[in-house]
């Protein structure tokens, strides 16, 4: 997968060759946000292919998480446009964007700590479970049917990470790595078209990271969805991302394949040069 060829996409980006016939999942144009006087992101323009695994890297404070927050409407952009599967998200809220197909994880884990692992995943499936409040209160057949189906699906999603046996455990009691994986499962449970992962390997040891790479590839293949990830672990980024965008001081300084990025002098200067050690 690392040998993916990127081809020029009209105007401003490159996407994997296999995605060229279909509408890109995400087209971001001139995105920017100011916090008071501080411009955190400026002129962010990027296209992500339908089934692409994309990477977003950059030094601390570059604005990577801010971009995720803009895409999911946690922050309203000051400038620019986001097209999700061709639809403009300008007037959408976080919830609407989620229903339209963007799911995410958080840099500092945000699980429903006091709920079970199973319930965390079921909250992700909230929108796809049918049945009114009345049907649940009266325990009508539609409730049982939907609940059974949802639990089955939740177990299948958990099994990607071999977590199906932890379904009854309390989410907050899981080890750190498992919590990160559970966040990914919960995000997948919303049936996204694109999955945004904010430093999924943070705090994981090398063998866990290796497994995670396999898991991300599997998710990408099995569900045919795009994945965009922020990561400081270069082995992971270079190992699984097809297209990479490098951010520095809120601006994109380079886009390209892992090989191109590694060779780019500006990137080496801004980022890799400092972090050669890791």
């Amino acid at each position, binding site marked *: 997968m690392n040998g993916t060829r990127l081809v020029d996409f009209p105007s401003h980006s490159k996407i994997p060759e296999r995605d060229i016939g279909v509408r890109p999942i995400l087209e971001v144009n001139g995105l920017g946000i100011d916090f008071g006087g501080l411009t955190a992101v400026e002129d962010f323009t990027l296209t992500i292919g339908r089934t692409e695994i994309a990477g977003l890297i950059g030094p601390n404070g570059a604005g990577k998480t801010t971009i995720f927050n803009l895409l999911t409407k946690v922050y309203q952009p000051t400038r620019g446009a986001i097209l999700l599967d061709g639809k403009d998200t300008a007037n959408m809220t976080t919830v609407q964007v989620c229903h339209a197909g963007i799911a995410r994880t958080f840099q500092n884990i945000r699980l429903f700590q006091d709920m079970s692992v199973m319930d965390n995943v079921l909250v992700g499936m*909230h929108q796809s479970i049918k049945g009114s409040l009345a049907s649940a209160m009266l325990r009508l057949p539609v409730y049982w049917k939907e609940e059974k189906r949802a639990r089955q699906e939740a177990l299948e999603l958990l099994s990607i990470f071999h977590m199906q046996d932890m379904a009854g455990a309390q989410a907050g009691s899981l080890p750190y790595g498992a919590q990160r994986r559970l966040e990914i499962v919960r995000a997948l449970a919303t049936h996204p078209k694109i999955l945004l992962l904010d430093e999924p390997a943070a705090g994981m040891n090398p063998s866990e990271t290796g497994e995670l790479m396999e898991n991300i590839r599997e998710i990408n293949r099995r569900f045919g969805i795009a994945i965009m990830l922020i990561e400081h672990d270069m082995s992971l980024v270079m190992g699984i991302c097809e297209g990479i965008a490098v951010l520095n001081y809120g601006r994109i300084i380079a886009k390209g394949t892992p090989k191109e990025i590694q060779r780019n002098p500006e990137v080496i200067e801004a980022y890799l040069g400092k972090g050669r050690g890791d």
Partner: protein
Amino acid sequence: MRDKYKRIPIPVRYLINALLCAAFLVIVQSFISGGSISRYQSGILVQIGVYIIMAVSLNIATGYLGQLPLGHAGFMSIGGYSCAIFMMRLADKMGVETADLLIPGLIFGGCVTALFGLIIGIPALRLKGDYLAIVTLGFAEIIRVFMLNIDSLLGFKFTGGAGGLTGIPRYSNFLNVFISVILVCFFVHTMMKSRHGRAILAIRDNEIAAEASGVNISYYKTLAFVISAFFAGIGGGLYAGSIGVMDPTKFGFMESIEILVMVVLGGMGSMLGSISAATVITVVNQVLTSLSEYRMVIYALLLIVVMMFRPKGLFGTYDFSLSHVMERLFNRDFPKRKSKGARK
């Protein structure tokens, strides 16, 4: 779920619980009819039932949703007045016994209260922070003053003003109060164990993550608050019929705090906790009426002690399930369900 343990099938669980509830009702009722439970004692039972409903309904907003409303007595008051006035006036018009109108009366009282919950919930729940506490506190006070003074404004007898609404037929009894308790607990339970209840719990645990998972925050906050108000209205309606008088001064700040103490003491988010604490506190209140002046001191001390030794309340978020206990008996290595909140 694939499972290596022997499970009790769901219809059987429901049947067991239904039979137990029925047995409880029949046995206690036969004691009352037989005279082994005195009128005084059955009066206390009715009060226990009313306060169980009040605590369980407040628990929806505090324990499950994680908000801090301080005006639950205001809802109780609205429910009591609207239910009693509705039943009395309609019974007059239709020429039937007031008690025959209990079901429509309670539903009416619940709906009126829910409407007020909606009106104050929509603006108050949109704001982040503890605005709900302040808004509900003020709201309950407004309701109290309203009930006191509306008659002089209207120019005819409606709520009875400072003298209270008197002459309410005593339509509440052990049987109808405890059937209501069982129904309220059942509906709260079935709501919480569904996608709607999970959405409410998710908001409590992490609002940002709930939103990112597609849960409409303001909708579910308002829903939980309105349902909490609805059941509080039913509790108020049953209260009116148990005392026979609605005295507006009863539903002040202290009453709201008393219900809150029940929820906090029992464990926020534990229905079993709310039920137990409501029972104990009501009994203590009824039996030790002479101590009523020191009640707030006793609550304060109790709360301090509980917070020191069991900061999440007596039961944490643990909820009792008979089926789980039985399953544990059948399966020797059955995983124990931990009380999530309570500290070791």
